[in-house]
């Protein structure tokens, strides 16, 4: 009998432990969240326009930002040479939302309705002021390349709960605010110094949702099954001859590849979704590769217990023509993001799924370019910006941290991005200070060597 049939998927499932991979001793304590979806808004989302309106901005509209507020710290090379720094109030009005009355822009009408479910952190901060270092920092805990992404860390630490899909999946969509948006890099979902099996596996639309998934033309699934049986039989003979456990590992890898050929197309086939669900995610859900489509896929991945689902939506870098670009960009993400949170709630999954809505930095309250010019925009601002969290382990309906009257400097409860990382790990039952990988002589951590703290004030 062929070995492949000996190791049919059913048999493998019966033998396999529930969790594949992961470290002994992890999680360190009972987790509130079993899985994470990170909706990364790449390019630098304008906290000023979308979440952090202040009366003073309207009073000072068009006037110079006070020197005492602006301070003397560095600006990017794009605005450091400007002769004036006039205040630009939010583009669009907003309203007080939720029971706690947090302000959210009318550009995000859907997210306005989530106010009671989400925890808005208004005091996130980073030292980085340019895209490459800033987005690398947010995704790997370091501004320089060579480090592991959060998803890779989580895959390494907790392993997978699904033997037919990778533990960490990444998806990229193009924004309509600015296209092309700032470039992004495979290092953002890379494994860095961790074993490469923890790198995020890209999921893309089309015939090969995972690269190389599809059999070549003229090769049928049953034919491939026979092929793999023969291959396994040949390999197994050799394994016995040589006493090499690695060969057995490889046989299993081929079996998982085969299972992925079924599990991935099943995952990406949304024909079974109800009209109501599709409608909730908006018309773009019909366009594979869009943010909306990726949000729906994210829900389907989370349902299948994929540990870490990472979306990147490009196009938030509104240095230029923010008045034209930002509304488009908001429209891309508002309805799908809202639908995803509601969908998780409907399925009872929001309780143990952590939703992270993040970006690499905010944008300046002052204008880049001439005030009133259609080309006017906002530059990068790392001193304070807004992200929000929801779901497993997080207290909804709160605002955490605050900025000054010009949403420029933090006045209350600063949250460094390392603290955010520590908090994400905490929700997954991991103590960031004990979660290490020895590399180049150091017990390297996602949160690095600087001090970092779990943001206790936002935990449920």
């Amino acid at each position, binding site marked *: 009998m062929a070995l492949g049939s000996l190791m049919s998927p059913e048999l493998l499932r019966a033998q396999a*432990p529930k969790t594949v991979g992961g470290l002994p001793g992890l999680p360190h304590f009972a987790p509130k969240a079993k899985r994470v979806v990170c909706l990364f808004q790449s390019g630098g989302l304008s906290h000023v326009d979308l979440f952090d309106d202040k009366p003073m901005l309207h009073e000072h509209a068009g006037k110079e930002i006070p020197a005492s507020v602006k301070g003397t710290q560095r600006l990017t090379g794009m605005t450091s040479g400007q002769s004036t720094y006039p205040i630009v109030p939010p583009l669009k009005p907003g309203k007080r939302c939720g029971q706690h009355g947090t302000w959210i822009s009318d550009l995000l009408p859907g997210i306005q309705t989530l106010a009671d479910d989400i925890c808005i952190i208004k005091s996130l901060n980073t030292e980085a002021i340019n895209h490459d270092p800033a987005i690398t920092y947010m995704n790997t805990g370091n501004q320089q390349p060579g480090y592991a992404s959060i998803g890779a860390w989580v895959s390494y630490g907790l392993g997978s709960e699904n033997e037919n899909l990778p533990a960490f999946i990444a998806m990229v969509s193009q924004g309509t605010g600015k296209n092309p948006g700032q470039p992004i890099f495979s290092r953002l979902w890379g494994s860095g110094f961790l074993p490469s099996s923890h790198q995020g596996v890209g999921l893309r639309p089309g015939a090969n949702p995972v690269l190389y998934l599809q059999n070549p033309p003229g090769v049928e699934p049953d034919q491939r099954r026979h092929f793999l049986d023969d291959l396994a039989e040949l*390999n197994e003979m050799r394994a016995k001859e040589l006493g090499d456990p690695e060969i057995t590992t490889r046989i299993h890898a081929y079996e*998982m590849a085969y299972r*992925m050929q079924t599990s991935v197309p099943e995952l990406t086939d949304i024909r079974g979704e109800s009209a109501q669900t599709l409608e909730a995610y908006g018309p773009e859900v019909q366009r594979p590769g869009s943010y909306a489509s990726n949000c729906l896929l994210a829900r389907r991945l989370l349902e299948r217990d994929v540990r870490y689902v990472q979306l990147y939506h490009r196009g938030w870098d509104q240095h230029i023509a923010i008045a034209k670009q930002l509304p488009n960009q908001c429209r891309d993400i508002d309805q799908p993001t809202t639908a995803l949170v509601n969908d998780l709630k409907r399925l009872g999954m929001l309780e143990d799924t952590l939703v992270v809505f993040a970006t690499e930095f905010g944008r300046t309250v002052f204008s880049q370019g001439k005030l009133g010019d259609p080309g006017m925009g906002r530059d990068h601002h790392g001193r304070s910006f807004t992200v929000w969290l929801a779901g497993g382990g997080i207290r909804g309906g709160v605002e955490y941290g605050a900025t000054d009257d010009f949403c420029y400097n933090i006045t209350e409860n600063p949250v460094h991005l390392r603290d955010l990382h520590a908090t994400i790990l905490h929700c997954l039952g991991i103590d960031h200070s004990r979660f290490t990988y020895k590399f180049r002589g150091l017990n390297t951590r996602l949160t690095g060597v600087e001090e970092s703290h779990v943001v206790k004030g936002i935990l449920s």
Partner: protein
Amino acid sequence: MNAILLRSALSSLLLGIACGSTLSINLCHAGERAMDYNRDIRPILSENCFACHGFDEKSRQADLRLDIFESAYTDRKGTIAIVPGQLAKSEVWRRVMSDDADEVMPPPNSHRSLTNGEKDKLKRWIEQGAPYAGHWSFIPPVKHELPSGPSRQPIDAFVDARLEAEGMKRSPEANRETLIRRLYVDLTGLPPSGDEVLAFVADKSDNAYEKVVERLLSSPHFGERLAIEWLDSARYADTNGFSIDGGRHMWLWRDWVIQAFNDNLPYDQFLLEQLAGDLLPNCTDPQKIATGFQRNNMVTHEGGTIPEENLANYNADRVKTLGESILGLTLGCAQCHDHKFDPIKQSEYYQMFAFFNTISDKGLDGNAGVNPGPSIQARTVLKTDEVPHLREQIEAIEKSLLTMDLARLSAWEKREQASLALRGKDLQTYPVSLKKVSTPNRGAGFEIEEATNRVRLDGFGSMGAIDVVAEIPKISQPITGLRVIMHPMAELPGGGWGYGPDDALKAKAKKAKAASESPDEKKVKGSFMLTALAVTADKVPGDQVNLFKLMAIDHVTANSWEASNPPAGCLDPRNDSGWSPDLDHSGPVQLTASFAEPFDAVSAPYLTVQLNFGNGRSLVAKSIELQVITGVDDDTDLPSDILAILKLSEKDRSEDQHASLWKYCAEHSDELLPSRIELANLRERLDVLTKPFTTMVMDVAAKQRETFVLQRGDYSKPTDKVSPGTLAVLPAMPTESSRDRLGLAQWIVMKENPLTARVAVNRFWKMLFGRGLVGTPADFGSQGEWPTHPELLDWLAVDFVDQGWNVKELIRTIVLSDTYRQTSVTTIELVERDPQNLLLARGPRFRLSAEFIRDAALKISGLIVPRIGGPSVNPYTPGDLWREVSHYGSSPATAQTFVQDHGEKLYRRSLYTYWKRTAPPPNMMAFDAPNREVCTVSRGNTTTPLQALVTLNDTQFVEAARAFAARILMSTAKDDQDRLEWAFLEATSRTPTSEERSILSRSLDRERERYRGGINQAKAYLSVGESKISNQVNAAELAAWSQVASLLLNLSETLTKN
């Protein structure tokens, strides 16, 4: 199946098997032997104590150092950390054993604690007098006397002695088939051919093995093979890395490395030239090329970044790379503070930094495919005898293209005539209703002009990507194409179509002006260049083209073009070609793209069109109309003179017209495309070997930057000024050396440097055994692993230097040892006792690295094109993975959109695959290839499902299976059984067992039956890949054998070095 095996296999499915893990397993039964500070104690103290009681002054607690005995033995008000020989009086011991949370060491918040084994070692060490010793790797190596025993080969003598101490024995020699394959893979990165295996097996001479070794050491592939690890260390790649990640040109440096290994350049010289070739007296171009080593770091041209910060990062990367790849020191750990574990002060770090802070590089540089400075133009160092043959080949193809081939000409003409006959058939054009226009970098100057239903662009710069959304009217016939019409406008220069003028015309106008012939520059007609066109149709409107659904365009036509910028120029998405109309044309100009597959506008009524303009110049159109068409386009891509000739009957054509027709056919027809590709590739190759190209180098700036210690590594917080200098813990620089990079290089390769040779020897050992004698090849410091065979490492290091840093000799010594020649066949017991093979009681066995897996498939299939060096190539990749993440359309940077190469460039060895750092080749990344962003000294070695998908389904491997099948069928083997045996030998270097043969036979029969019954399936399967399909065998037979070939290419044995 063994339960342990199954469990380990499952857990490593996702986790993978990480080779080069830093776990150190002490296999020695500690017994009562004397504790050795370096081997037994330092690792414990380093891991648990040194962070607070070590070298770093700023984080030192209680002013106590445990890394030096002077401090550890000191009486502090009656308390002494360590009292030699007196456990009870040693505070360290009391604190380690304490139950009190306030007293116990290490403290609870460090999350560290000593194991019982470690406590036991510490106890015995103190009892034995707590002898300290200098860190082993800082003490110069000496050749220890060989241990007594039968073997006088030093490697074997040391390995045997260690095994004997453990009560173990070396494994017997591997069989010849395994040995020759191991040698081939290790020394060339390619498997041997079946004939080479058989010849070796049959060679009964005493020096049969040595002969193979010598042959391989002098193979030109030796240099390619050895280069791989160095390219990883040097973080060599083809793009700049940060942010926009534009292209650069560093392959001259890569080829220098290959040639250096092939020439057996002494390793000290190898380092000297790479670190300071430009400072050598009378330096040569090759020595300057070599200095590209420290220019391989990533650079950025992200607008907004601060040049000083970037420069500080570049130099930090250079110091880090120097440390990890050459010195085996984690120098980077001292960037922000004194090193926590090794005696390296932060100020010393910046002294090392200062050596590199003298280059004239800029903090923002390298855009538009131009190398970041400094760079030079130089000729390749490759030594090859290809040139005469290349010239012959080029001449032959040129001649064949000049020689009229009537059969091909008439086939082409027949097709052209047929399409001309259909020209304009049932053509209907429909204006589409323009909805929206967007562009990334402007706030105004682009809009839909409702009255005319046109896009209007105002005053554009040097390039622009314009996305237009339009709604198609309800049309029941399939939409066959898109027409883009540019209207002339009176307000444009010369009443033309765009902002132009072409630079050349501008220059001409200037000249004319100078000669006061034509004083008005405006008379030059404004034009445009459409560099790329992309279209998507969808059921919902999309502001931008959907990169995942770009419509395949069959061909483009226009009603006017300049000879140098025909319509087809916009089919290449890169911005170096495009369509531009003939300036003499008057009225609107139009370009029509006909789709490969017509589409239904009812289900996909929304069109998005991306128009890319400019080519780096102001060649942008102003007034643009869009139409869709049904039926057949009435324009043509044929020039008017060719059109006129085609209208004549054949007998009415003059000799000249006949010749013009052939010339056009030769230059444009699909029939002759393979010849044109081959010609272009050969010409490029000839250029590579004969002309200068740009490459990045080191230099010394006229005005050098000053170097300061940076507080916490922050570029904006300089403190004390420092000058170049080396590390105090290591021997001083030679007195005659200058305090510059040359001096640094001389210090690194001086005999007294205790690290350089050890680190190098260890790396070469690792290349062959999968693991170094020191398990942490980038870290020979306190936190690194203690060598498994310290005396052997030292013996090899000293011998390496004594032999003149002779790399080939070192490798010869290793591969001739019995230790290397052992069989890797093993037992579960041995695997469990020594899973990492630390003791070397068996031969090495591990999966081939990414490059060699693809290279093996290319060689076994016979597709390989074994040229050495040259610009990197773009073989098959699934789709345009670059554009999905890049700044395409918003940047003049190169490497923003992937365009696959053709012809021989598909079959070059994998180290020549274009390495874009932000989107590296996925079939390499699946097999643990690093992204080359930073120095990598050891790759992982995982086993994952994605790897299986690559070798099963990647076009490269599917095509290789087909080509391998053709080779099998063309071989001298005469029946199925013979063929299976021949093929098995080619793939695995051994003959199959009868059981293996029967499985393969069964497989073959099954596939044969399947494809005989489904010939279209067979043809579809065989159509994968661009190499010519053998027409000497029938499709079903070839397809069936291709399946068997794929089976062989996927065998664990084929993918593994045994």
